[in-house]
């Protein structure tokens, strides 16, 4: 009868129940949230600074369009960015036009208005400086229609006739040419915004995007997409830049530890693999 070789520590670790890994991950992310470590954010990324500097240089009264395309899943990264960027626009006296390209993003516009202004349709500047057009369906076709004619939706999200709103008075062309920048919030794709707005009307694009989308934006950066907040870290950077630390900045310690744990797992897993391989050889 063959005697079984005792398992090495590496083999034991390799065959460990996967739920211990889940527990370790949960603890690594929870601990810094319950007890912040205070790791400094570090230098601002070029992507975030690109967007911040562009908005900072806009003259007061410029029209900024926010396209909310975030699902509740992407909102964890996009919503803090949207709040910070909207705060920046409010500080600079810019006019902001909101619309949602998906039904689930509609409440986030309301939440942004409430968190920055304290009110939405009841705010004295609503209709003059800030308008919420609500949900415009069909993604790219809807954006193309809005870009060609800003009065496309006829009514805003609250049922007001947009022709009566001061925001829409005295527009030079009533098209996307009047917009200073379009900022996309979401996780699907920024291609359609660049296609329908930047390459047609010349209006630049920006992003408050989930990190999973960032890789698809680099081909357009910085020529057509002047800048974007890259996930939660980018949102945290923007919050610090506008001096309004919020949910994103609070989550950075957990972000650090989570990343560190995954890198350690990769190193440990590969170490174990190579050591076991050498032993077998």
């Amino acid at each position, binding site marked *: 009868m063959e005697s079984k070789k005792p398992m090495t520590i590496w083999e034991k670790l390799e065959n460990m129940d996967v*739920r211990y890994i*889940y527990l370790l991950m949960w603890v690594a*992310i*929870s601990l810094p*949230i*319950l007890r912040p470590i205070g790791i400094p954010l570090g230098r601002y990324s070029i992507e975030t600074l690109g967007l911040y500097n562009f908005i900072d240089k806009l003259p007061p009264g410029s029209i900024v369009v926010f396209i909310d395309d975030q699902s509740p*899943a992407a*909102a*964890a*990264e996009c919503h803090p960015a949207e709040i910070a960027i909207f705060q920046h626009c409010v500080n600079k006296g810019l006019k902001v036009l909101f619309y949602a390209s998906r*039904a*689930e993003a*509609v409440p986030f516009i309301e939440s942004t208005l409430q968190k920055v202004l304290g009110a939405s349709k009841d705010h004295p500047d609503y209709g003059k400086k800030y308008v919420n057009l*609500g*949900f*415009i*369906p*069909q993604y*790219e*076709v809807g954006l*193309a229609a809005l870009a060609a004619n800003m009065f496309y*939706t*006829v*009514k805003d999200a609250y049922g007001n006739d947009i022709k009566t709103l001061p925001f829409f008075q005295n527009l030079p062309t009533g098209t996307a040419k009047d917009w200073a920048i379009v900022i996309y919030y979401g*996780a699907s794709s920024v*291609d*359609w915004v*660049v*296609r*329908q707005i930047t*390459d*047609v009307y010349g209006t630049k694009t920006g992003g408050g995007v*989930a*990190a*999973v989308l*960032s*890789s698809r934006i680099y*081909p*357009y950066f910085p*020529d*057509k997409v002047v800048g974007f907040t*890259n*996930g*939660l*870290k980018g949102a945290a950077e923007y919050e610090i830049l506008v001096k309004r630390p919020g*949910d994103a900045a*609070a*989550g950075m310690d*957990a*972000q650090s530890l*989570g*990343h560190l744990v*995954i890198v350690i797992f990769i190193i440990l897993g590969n170490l174990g693999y190579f050591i076991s391989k050498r032993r077998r050889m």
Partner: protein
Amino acid sequence: MSVDLTTIVNLTAAGITLMLLSYLYKENRFFRIAEHAYMGAAAAYTTLISIDTAWTYLYDYVSKGHWWWWLTIPIGLLYIFFFTRKYFYLYRYPTAIVMGIGMGTIVSRYIKTQFLEQIRATIYESTTTQYLLPKPLDGILISIGVLTALFYFYFTMEFKGPLNTIAKIGRYTLIAGFGGSFGLTVMARISLFIGRVRFLYFTHPGPYICVVAAIMLIASITLDYMKKSK
């Protein structure tokens, strides 16, 4: 004792979150219940918002006396024939309309943005880009990467000798890009979980629900361990 609506909403949200997270221990009935609740509610919410928008657009025309706009409703209702065998072809009409309009809006701009502009940007960046290496090395790397990776996707001939080397460089470019994308994806997923955890720990009555969930988890682990021992 009065309980306000916000507490009930937060209680439900925390409950749904933890029921879905229970999948990490093992697949269970709580997870399935939460998953089904989410699917039903999401479908209902999307439908309501879509109906509101469609009615706003329709009312704008019919209120001006353009009665022919009412025809959009029966055309849209042809979608229901998706479920029939005999009249399935009627489902193709609204599909053709939606698809045709979408294709027409996109096609000319697609070619400009995703082909001509990308080629222009690659040529422009080959001399202007500088991130780590001295100019114009970074730009040249981008151009080489794009060209070799496009070459890698050319499947109609066998790569031998120098062609194989070019395809290999293209493959490594793609893989390095995927590595970067992986790093970004990890950040995205961790951020999502951070959002959930912050909600559970800091929104009343999340912490109480967490304690209840922890007790249930310990009980479940104990029961499983006892079953295994038998």
